[in-house]
């Protein structure tokens, strides 16, 4: 394995692991704060018990998210020093602001976890709200930095030197809005469905505790609304990518010929040698509509992009289809849930729907992973689109496969332990008589 490949896998693994915990760190505090607000209003012990269980889950997920995020901030330099050497100052602004948001999050989660008897109930609840808000804000800042790698702005390169650095323009680059919107919604969406699946599973296993039904009551509206919003946000993202990152767009769509009235390619296997996508379903003109809102718009194909500037096509294409497929399944599940509630069905007693919730529980998380694969692999061979190649950014340090294996082993262990602990927290005995 080359050091470049090892470094890329190391980064991919670290990001892919962290993003799940980061998403939970964004969404869980909101759920927890909603549930605590209900407890303050109703004084129903089930609300308190649910809040406490979600809090414990949040504590575990947040801690692993915090340390795996630390790994990433170091790895930017450990793996890509030649990138950070010039890009560090350009994207330092969102990272600095993220530092503060994360600081507030860490302070108030300490108060929230350990302060039940030390602060008045409203202050306690407000601490949870601060955690929820600063978690979302910190995620937004980090995604802004990533967006800059996709659509780099706010600097000029003259004679190999970076000049005219405008950190604000870099932070508010053309991809920032679409990417942060898409990721923030994704966090609530994926974690809401994942949590609903776990609670549905508990009911199906025979738990009569009210907390599980209460959880689904709280989560279904969040899940349904975010599931409906996400395709709209995805449409904004697609249009942005089509305009600013044509090679990524062509790769994720498996689109080879530059043409007007381009067809949407669904499924199929992209073949880089023959420059075609085989065995795909093609819907005429739809790609032009999705890319530019005009059935006759011209969409650039991969053939128009020099071979040494093309991303590997199959990976972003499959990942993109996976993301969209998972997302649509969640839209359908959310709509069905709303329909059932509207028909006055009690979801907690509708076993078929509970089974469906268990089935779709992982799909949001899968969609997040797939979406990041589209973003990151689709940008290759660039680390900064059109400006710096990933191969030119990698550290001269040899033997990167060693830290790759070490991190993989540690993350595997952490993942298994977290899974086990969450299971205990959800299914373990509680005050509500499980």
């Amino acid at each position, binding site marked *: 394995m080359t050091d470049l490949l090892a470094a890329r896998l190391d980064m991919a693994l670290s990001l892919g692991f962290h993003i799940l915990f980061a998403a939970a760190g964004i969404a869980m505090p909101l759920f927890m704060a909603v549930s605590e607000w209900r407890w303050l209003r109703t004084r129903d012990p089930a609300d308190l018990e649910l809040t406490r269980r979600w809090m414990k889950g949040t504590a575990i997920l947040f801690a*692993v998210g915090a340390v795996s995020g630390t790994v990433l901030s170091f790895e930017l330099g450990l793996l890509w020093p030649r990138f950070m050497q010039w890009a560090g*100052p350009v994207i330092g602004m969102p990272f600095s602001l993220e530092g503060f948001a994360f600081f*507030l999050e860490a302070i108030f989660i300490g108060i929230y976890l350990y*302060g039940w008897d030390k602060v008045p109930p409203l202050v306690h609840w407000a601490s949870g709200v601060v955690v929820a808000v600063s978690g979302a804000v910190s995620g937004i800042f980090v995604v802004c930095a990533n967006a800059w790698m996709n659509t780099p702005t706010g600097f000029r390169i003259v004679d190999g030197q970076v000049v005219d650095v405008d950190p604000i323009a870099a932070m508010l680059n053309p991809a920032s809005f679409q990417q942060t919107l898409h990721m923030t919604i994704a966090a609530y969406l994926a974690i809401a469905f994942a949590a609903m699946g776990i609670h549905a599973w508990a009911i199906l296993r025979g738990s009569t505790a009210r907390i599980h039904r209460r959880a689904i009551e709280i989560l279904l509206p969040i899940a349904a609304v975010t599931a409906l919003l996400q395709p709209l946000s995805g449409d904004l993202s697609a249009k942005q990518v089509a305009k600013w990152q044509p090679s990524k767009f062509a790769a994720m769509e498996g689109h080879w010929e530059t043409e007007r009235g381009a067809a949407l390619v669904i499924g199929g296997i992209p073949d880089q040698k023959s420059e075609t996508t085989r065995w795909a379903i093609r819907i005429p003109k739809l790609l032009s509509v999705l890319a530019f809102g005009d059935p006759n718009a011209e969409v650039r194909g991969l053939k128009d992009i020099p071979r040494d500037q093309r991303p590997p096509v199959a990976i972003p294409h499959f990942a993109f289809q996976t993301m969209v497929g998972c997302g649509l399944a969640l839209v359908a599940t959310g709509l069905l849930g709303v329909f059932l509630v509207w028909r006055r069905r009690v979801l907690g007693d509708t076993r078929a729907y509970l089974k469906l919730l268990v089935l779709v529980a992982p799909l949001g998380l899968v969609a997040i992973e797939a979406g990041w694969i589209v973003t990151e692999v689709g940008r290759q061979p660039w680390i900064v689109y059109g400006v710096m190649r990933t191969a030119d950014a990698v550290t001269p340090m040899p033997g990167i496969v060693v830290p790759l294996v070490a991190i993989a082993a540690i993350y595997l262990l952490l993942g298994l332990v977290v899974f086990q602990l969450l299971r205990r927290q959800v299914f373990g005995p509680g005050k509500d008589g499980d």
Partner: protein
Amino acid sequence: MDYPFVLGVILLGALVLYALGGGADFGGGVWDLFAGGPTAEKQRELIATAIGPIWEANHVWLILVIVLLFSCFPLAFAAIATALHIPLTLMLIGIVLRGAAFTFRTYDRNDARTQRRWSRLFAIASVITPVMFGVCVGAVLSGRIRVDRLSGDVRTDFVSEWLAPFPFALGLFALALFAYLAAVYLTVEAQTPDLRRAFRSRALAAAIATGVLAWACFFLARAGAPIMHSGLAGRDWSLAFQVAVGGVALAALAALWTERYPLARVLAVAQVTLVVLGWGFAQYPFLIEPDLTIHNAAAHPAVLRLVTIALGIGAILLLPSLAFLYRLFKSPREAA
């Protein structure tokens, strides 16, 4: 305004706070490892109670240091991350395992075997991390990491810069210093006389180890970090400075000996603050001796200005929140 200087001061300030907060959390892990005697389990409980609510906030100082380094002094960040890849990775593994094990212990089964397993991992990771942190600092001070200022290329074999007596002496010094600080904090936070005595004797032992290792570092610096060594020995403020650190250290020892714990805590905080500031003064104006200074490694002035403003605005939100956190969990009422 001399922005590189301002940001250098902020960086040093963040390192002081990281040492006082995060350093002591690692020190707590050391005492988890060395918990013993009839109160061993009580010692572990006290350590967990002491660091539980605050360790995550304390940890963020390190993130802030990293972010400031790559935003404002990118050449130094890239050079350190390249040459010190191995010790930094070991430190990261320590950070991950420490935080994860501590949290897992809190939320896993309460039986003795499970708890002991996480305790052991938490404690060992708490030892590795500060040692590796000190090793990295030692390597930066050694003058062996050479950087081409124009290209940013680093001349390094990835090993010899840090695998040397001086960096490791500094690593052990950092470990002893943090353990000492933690033990002094814990004498104040202990609720019973026997616990207080246990941490008093640990603090005294760690204080002696810290003193011995400080001399060892100074002795090894002659060959291991010649530029800094001549700086420390040669500059006219340095003798006064060393007398001040020594005086505070002795006063802290005396306060511990006479069981004036709150006073000992103030003096230990002063001592650690002086040590970190002394490190800053000793290498000023260098970030990496002898090629990178805060001025020649600084990013574009526009960036430095904005980051300074952002830090100022951020501090308005951050400092009161941090004060609130500490008042809730570390106020005298809490300790009484």
